[in-house]
């Protein structure tokens, strides 16, 4: 296996979870009501656990002695491989939940397939994640139903979010030579098969909510090469400030 292939793949998974956590955490204390504030931050914590496990394993696989903290706090934008969808701003609650639904539906299928990965550590992390993600899909899709079948205002907001976010969903299924090599070794999974399953789940949910699937064919991309939207830089500046400003600090 080429040097760094599995490392890059794990970074893609771990960074996505990490950046998603960072974005969701912005809702702490600002949720529409107490129970929902806790629900969203609980989802963020689930993803933090997954990010921790994946980045920890990535550091081991890399073999240069980097821990999950080194990887999270001491890398620059161009070295992050998270998908673009998770770095987008939260916007209003409909936007956050629509974004989370599109992501969770994808990750639930992805990690279910990865539970049978030939890599035992990755399979173990995946098995645990599926239980959490099943709940994330349930929670976000029931909110999408409420937005779509609620008032004209809520439906309009959910539809606007869907229209804006759709162009970031193409990237979820992009495969490159990292995938090709790992798929051959049964470590990673085919993203084309996941795409059709995801489309079915999402289409069913969207139409049940009285919403429409956006029709634009243009898909935004770039994260596979470390090219990100303008938002990631600001997020990392905030997230990495303390460890970089006080490198010897200990909890």
């Amino acid at each position, binding site marked *: 296996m080429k040097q760094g292939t599995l490392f890059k793949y794990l970074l893609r998974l771990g960074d996505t979870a990490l950046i998603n956590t960072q974005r969701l955490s912005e809702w702490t204390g600002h949720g529409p*009501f107490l129970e929902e504030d806790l629900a969203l931050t609980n989802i963020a914590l689930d993803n933090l656990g997954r990010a921790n496990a994946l980045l920890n394993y990535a550091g081991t696989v890399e073999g240069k002695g980097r821990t999950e903290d080194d990887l999270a706090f001491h890398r620059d934008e161009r070295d992050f491989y998270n998908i673009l969808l998770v770095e987008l701003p939260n916007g209003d609650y409909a936007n956050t939940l629509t974004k989370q639904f599109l992501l969770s539906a994808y990750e639930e299928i992805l990690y279910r397939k990865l539970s049978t990965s030939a890599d035992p550590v990755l399979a173990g992390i995946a098995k645990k994640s599926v239980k959490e993600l099943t709940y994330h899909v349930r929670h976000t899709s029931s909110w999408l139903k409420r937005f779509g079948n609620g008032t004209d205002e809520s439906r309009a907001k959910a539809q606007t979010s869907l229209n804006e976010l759709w162009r970031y969903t193409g990237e979820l299924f992009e495969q490159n030579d990292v995938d090709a090599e790992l798929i051959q070794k049964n470590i990673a999974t085919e993203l084309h098969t996941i795409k059709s399953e995801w489309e079915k789940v999402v289409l069913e949910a969207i139409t049940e909510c009285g919403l429409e699937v956006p029709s634009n064919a243009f898909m935004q991309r770039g994260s596979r090469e470390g090219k990100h939207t303008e938002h990631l830089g600001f997020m990392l500046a905030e997230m990495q400030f303390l460890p970089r400003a006080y490198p010897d600090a200990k909890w």
Partner: protein
Amino acid sequence: MDTQGSLWEVFVQKKTGQPFVHCGSLHAFDKEMALQNARDLYARRGEGNALWVVLASEIVASTPEDIGAFFDPSNDKVYRHPTFYEVPDGIKHI
């Protein structure tokens, strides 16, 4: 205008077969949301395996005025209490 939803009482069951115990309350607009919120609020630290949520308005409760009529008569009648049987060692959850 109430924008919190209805009040629900939450009960959690530690292990299958054991009684459900009251652990708190929450606000929600419907059954599905109430159950999900109960999971997020009261199942965070391994409290148990099952949850019940009940609309607080559905609960029928005794009042403090009832204490005399409901509970006093049995308090001073020792023959009503099953305290003369010694439970053998090792028997749990009778």
